[in-house]
């Protein structure tokens, strides 16, 4: 595993941001810049996925979607069990679990950049799986939390909650990231190559540069979270490193044995399994599981798992994918 593989802009900009926080630099990013970049990146992935989907093999695409659903519904349950085993209360466990069942587009794109840099080919389906995997985990988290609350349901507030439920489920499918990913995908599918080419310079040619800028800011965000570590405690910290390994290996299995992907594709599925959402899921959990402590799940997904995946995880998943498949 050649360390120079890590010397790609995406990773280095992330590290730079992290370091800037470490040395307490006064470097500030306008808050809206990250939001604008994530909107841009999600549309960009969507368009890319749509174009690929348009000449995808339907049977394979269907398999990929099914696999994505299985991972999206399965991983949160695994996470939930581990968290309960660690004596975490049920509501926080549900909220955290939802984050790990979902995905991080930033991590996924860093993996893409990593593969491109080494000219490793990869299947196109993982992009579609990324979009699919945004929502299921939110639903699982919702349901887990609902059962956790148990008795509470009986009292007056219950109805309010019931009434609530449908709306929250709807939210899972209409959250911003889902809209941008599937919207972009749809546009990528229906627009003819001619007109599509007019927006390619913006959404495709600039993509990797914009990603670097986004990761610089995310590196700073991750760095800011270090101060919160004492809040979350050792068990959760460990979970933030352990869970990606579990999710990663499950993703690897699914990618290789079920979907029959090569090294590149299998590694990307591993990354989907390993990554935790820090854009779509946190606001969803704010509404769905208000009782949970946001500093737990934000610190874990953004401050622990994200850096771990970008620096250690990606090359690691690649290494195992290569060992398993022999690329």
């Amino acid at each position, binding site marked *: 595993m050649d360390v120079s593989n890590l010397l790609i802009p995406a990773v280095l900009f992330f590290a730079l941001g992290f370091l800037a926080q470490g040395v307490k630099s006064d470097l500030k990013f306008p808050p809206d810049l*990250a939001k604008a970049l994530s909107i841009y990146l999600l549309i960009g992935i969507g368009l890319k996925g749509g174009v690929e989907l348009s000449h995808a093999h339907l049977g394979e695409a269907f398999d990929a979607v099914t696999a994505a659903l299985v991972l999206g519904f399965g991983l949160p349950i695994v996470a939930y069990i581990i968290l309960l085993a660690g004596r975490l209360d049920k509501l926080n466990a549900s909220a955290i679990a939802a984050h790990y069942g979902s995905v991080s587009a930033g991590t996924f794109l860093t993996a893409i950049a990593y593969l491109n840099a080494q000219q490793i080919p990869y299947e196109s389906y993982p992009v579609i799986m990324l979009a699919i995997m945004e929502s299921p985990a939110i639903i699982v988290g919702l349901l887990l939390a609902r059962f956790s609350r148990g008795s509470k349901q009986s009292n007056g507030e219950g109805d309010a909650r019931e009434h609530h439920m449908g709306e929250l489920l709807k939210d899972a499918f209409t959250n911003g990231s889902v809209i941008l990913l599937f919207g972009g995908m749809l546009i990528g599918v229906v627009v003819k190559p001619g007109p599509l080419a007019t927006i390619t310079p913006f959404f495709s040619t600039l993509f990797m540069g914009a990603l670097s800028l986004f990761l610089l800011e995310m590196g700073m965000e991750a760095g800011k979270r270090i101060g919160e570590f004492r809040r979350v405690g050792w068990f959760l910290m460990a979970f933030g490193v352990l869970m990606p390994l579990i999710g990663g290996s499950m993703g690897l299995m699914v990618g290789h044995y079920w979907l029959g992907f090569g090294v590149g594709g299998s590694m990307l599925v591993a990354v989907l399994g390993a990554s935790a959402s820090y854009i779509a899921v946190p*606001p969803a959990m704010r509404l769905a599981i208000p*009782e949970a402590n946001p500093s737990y799940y934000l610190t874990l997904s953004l401050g622990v798992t994200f850096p771990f995946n970008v620096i250690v995880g990606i090359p690691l998943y690649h290494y195992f994918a290569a060992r398993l498949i022999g690329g």
Partner: protein
Amino acid sequence: MSQLYPMKLINIIANGALEERLVNMAEAHGTSGYTILEARGAGSAGLQTGTLEGGSNILFVLIVTESKLAGVMVDVEKLMKRGHHLACFVSDTQVLRREKFAG
């Protein structure tokens, strides 16, 4: 000397995800309007850097007549009882045109 009329100034600081709920609340109580400012900060819910939706606060400002205050407070407490993390503080203020806010 222009006449000033006493009103209650309600401030709510919460995660941006709560915006829709707060707006609906304001409308349910028939206030003359509402104001929202972007905010950052820290509290029991941890650090809110304002960079990601999940970590962005809003300052929700509501001017209401004395008579409406209690009702709004009940709704805010409901949100808190559900576990939502928010800071709510109320101050006395005076407005230039009573009819504008007494709806």
